[in-house]
């Protein structure tokens, strides 16, 4: 083994960013090492400053032995990159601040998008990491940052780093282009090999003296024709410097834990003066209770109202609470509306079956939301319908500080947090400010000029706090995974929760006398079981979902043997336990349903022309057909069935907001449907869809 004397690039970066000339030299030498590795068919897969040794003889790239092991581990399963990356990255060092003990995935600071998605890494993945290293050397900060591994992974997958020249205005544009190309999300858009990157860096290095070293002023006084440009450039540089200074002066968000207990939160609000937090939840297995805490204190006390949930606090510190929990949505309760003063006393009951509530700024009148068979409605004052629609539910209605408008979440489908942020005037005129797949809480800014809300532009739970003006101009305030926004205090503190939910599996299998746990990773959902009960297919969400942006499917013998990974998406095992059908609900016409053998045999695609996404995969009891919901390329979701042996998908019906199950008969299907709480059996015929 070669002994190398020197320091790692990580050590060097601790002292500050090196001059560009030095960065180029390191970059060129790393390219030479990668070039040699690529010629030998080796992908490093863990290129990072800690693996680059700066010696008297130049930069050396270390840790290739690990790379070989990782490549070998790639051969069988699609998730291997993810797991081998975990192995690689689990060595916590002072330079890997995001490594957290006990998690599956370590720091992913320099990992390429395809590695995060669990796809196979190739030479271009190393070039992505090289781009991240070059960026860090030039910009003096990491290319991608996040407060958690999830947000970091999200940044790598979706965001472009801040332009280097915003941070270092004298950086050559050509260098910025090289780094940007290396950091392209799609490997096809990057340089394709290290040799090309090296040539670019060498070319930039040759021109470097002209680019960075100023001419002596005595011999090169600018002529008058250049003066305006010189002044303009100086103004641009000053503006950039001022912008940079302003950004640096803005302190980082400061999080302070309030709840300090294991449990689930149902509601939270600030008192009128902003110094007290009132929150309700189910803590450590106990029934719902309301607690009171002072801002900045780690102490809390129960308010002493059993089975109650805080909904709103008036300007005179009168609480609006719900007694009992009638669940409107996940961890979102309505119930019997009552009021009680924050100082104490018994609740005074006002109305039953109220879904949401807020106080008018005058502290005397209440706005309520009621869910009824005719749809949800907003009443202000109670009894006077201000706005109503036919379906869905309303969440978190909030009066503007001057009482002239009401903002609320408008969720068109019950049991779902898809929806809009809407604004309502006192005449009941509604306008839509924002549409999203998840809206989780809102609050008005202090001056009432903006509405802040938790939402997302991706799939899944809210992960961003946006601010939007009544005119609809939106901006991002904060990104953080799985959040719900509750309130903003008079001092500008934001009250929000971080939500995690995981599923665990229990089952009863051959030989069992009683049910027992059968989870695999941190979020397991069963998706199928063989007719003899000896094989179980399941999907893993949780951390894997956030990192790979999709479920990963597995099957596992129910005798306790280890699970075997099947691939991305959902899967269902056939009744005879010999096949699985696999598909993803992420629209992609290049990924049809796939049949995978669990024994000898070859995987094969099921012909699904025109269908781009699949979910709720099932087999008929006789194992001849699969039944699934699929999205046509025009966007509609329908229920389909398909003979496994041959034939096209046969469309049965629309995938409606009701529960449907099918029983294949000779030429018809019997469909059991639950809709609006009534169960019916229908007959239907499958028709070829294409």
């Amino acid at each position, binding site marked *: 083994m070669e002994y190398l004397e020197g320091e790692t690039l990580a050590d060097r970066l601790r002292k500050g960013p090196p001059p560009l000339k030095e960065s180029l030299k390191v970059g060129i030498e790393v390219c030479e090492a990668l070039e040699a590795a690529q010629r030998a068919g080796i992908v490093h897969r863990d290129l990072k400053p800690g693996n680059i040794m700066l010696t008297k003889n130049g930069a050396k790239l270390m840790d290739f032995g690990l790379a070989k092991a990782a490549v070998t581990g790639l051969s069988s399963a699609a998730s291997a990159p993810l797991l081998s990356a975990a192995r690689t990255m689990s060595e916590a060092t002072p330079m890997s601040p995001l490594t957290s003990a006990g998690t599956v995935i370590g720091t992913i600071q320099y990992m390429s998008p395809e590695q995060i998605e669990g796809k196979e890494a190739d030479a271009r993945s190393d070039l992505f990491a090289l781009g991240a290293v070059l960026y860090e050397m030039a910009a003096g900060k990491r290319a991608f940052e996040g407060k958690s591994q999830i947000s970091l992974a999200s940044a790598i997958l979706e965001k472009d780093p801040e332009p280097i020249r915003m941070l270092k205005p004298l950086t050559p544009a050509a260098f910025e282009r090289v780094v940007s190309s290396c950091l392209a999300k799609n490997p096809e858009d990057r340089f394709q090999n290290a040799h090309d990157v090296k040539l670019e860096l060498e070319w930039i290095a040759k021109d470097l003296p002209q680019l960075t070293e100023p001419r002596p002023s005595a011999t090169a006084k600018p002529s008058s024709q250049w003066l305006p440009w010189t002044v303009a450039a100086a103004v641009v540089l000053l503006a950039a410097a001022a912008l940079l200074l302003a950004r640096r002066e803005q302190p980082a*968000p400061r*999080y302070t834990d309030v709840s300090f207990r*294991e449990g689930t939160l149902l509601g939270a609000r600030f008192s009128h003066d902003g110094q007290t937090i009132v929150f309700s*939840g189910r803590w450590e297995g106990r029934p719902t209770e309301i607690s009171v805490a002072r801002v900045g204190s780690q102490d809390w006390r129960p308010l002493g109202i059993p089975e109650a949930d805080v909904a709103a606090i008036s300007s005179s510190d009168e609480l609006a609470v719900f007694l009992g929990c009638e669940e409107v949505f996940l961890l979102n309760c309505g119930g019997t509306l009552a009021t009680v003063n924050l100082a104490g006393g018994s609740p005074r009951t006002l109305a039953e079956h109220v879904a949401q509530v807020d106080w008018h700024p005058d502290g005397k009148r209440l706005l309520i939301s009621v869910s009824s068979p005719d749809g949800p409605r907003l009443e202000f004052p109670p009894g006077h319908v201000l706005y109503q629609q036919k379906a869905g539910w309303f969440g978190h209605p909030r009066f503007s500080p001057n009482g002239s408008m009401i903002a609320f979440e408008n969720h068109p489908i019950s049991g779902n947090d898809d929806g809009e942020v809407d604004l309502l005037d006192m005449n009941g005129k509604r306008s839509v400010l924002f549409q999203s797949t998840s809206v989780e809480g809102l609050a008005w800014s202090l001056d009432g000029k903006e509405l802040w809300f938790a939402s997302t532009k991706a799939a899944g739970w809210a992960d961003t706090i946006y601010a939007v003006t009544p005119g609809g101009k939106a901006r991002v305030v904060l990104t953080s995974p799985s959040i719900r926004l509750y309130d903003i205090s008079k001092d500008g503190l934001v009250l*929000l929760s971080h939500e*995690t939910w995981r599923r665990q*599996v229990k089952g009863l299998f051959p030989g069992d006398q009683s049910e027992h746990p*059968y989870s695999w990773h941190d979020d397991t959902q069963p998706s199928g079981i063989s007719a003899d009960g000896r094989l179980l297919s399941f999907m893993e969400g949780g951390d894997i979902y956030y990192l790979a942006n999709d479920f990963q499917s597995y099957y596992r013998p129910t005798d306790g043997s280890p699970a075997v990974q099947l691939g991305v998406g959902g899967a269902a095992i056939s009744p005879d336990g010999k096949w699985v059908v696999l598909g993803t609900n992420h629209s992609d016409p290049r990924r049809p349903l796939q049949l995978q053998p669990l024994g000898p045999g070859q995987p094969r695609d099921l012909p699904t022309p025109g269908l781009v996404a699949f979910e709720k995969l099932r087999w008929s009891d006789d194992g001849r057909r699969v039944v699934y919901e699929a999205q046509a390329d025009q966007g509609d979701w329908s229920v389909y069935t398909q003979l496994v042996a041959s034939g096209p998908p046969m469309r049965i019906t629309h995938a409606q907001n009701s529960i449907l*199950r099918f029983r294949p008969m000779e030429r018809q299907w019997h469909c059991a449907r639950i809709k609006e709480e009534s169960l019916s059996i229908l007959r239907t015929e499958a028709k070829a869809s294409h």
Partner: protein
Amino acid sequence: MRFALGGKSLLVVEPTGHEMVFTLVDLASGRRQLWKRIASEAHADELFVATPDLKYYAYAFPRYSSVLYTVGNLH
């Protein structure tokens, strides 16, 4: 909800908040029979799988966890 016992019955799941109540509905007679109660807050029966004879099964149950924060310095 799913067909069970060779398609002769329906297994219907009713979430009640703290448990799932499984009822077998005989399609010929309409007779209902409690099959099982499972202590779980799971709402979707997609999280339940069973063999056609209902001898063996698996289900998922959720674990929720919240942490409440105040966050300063947001602009």
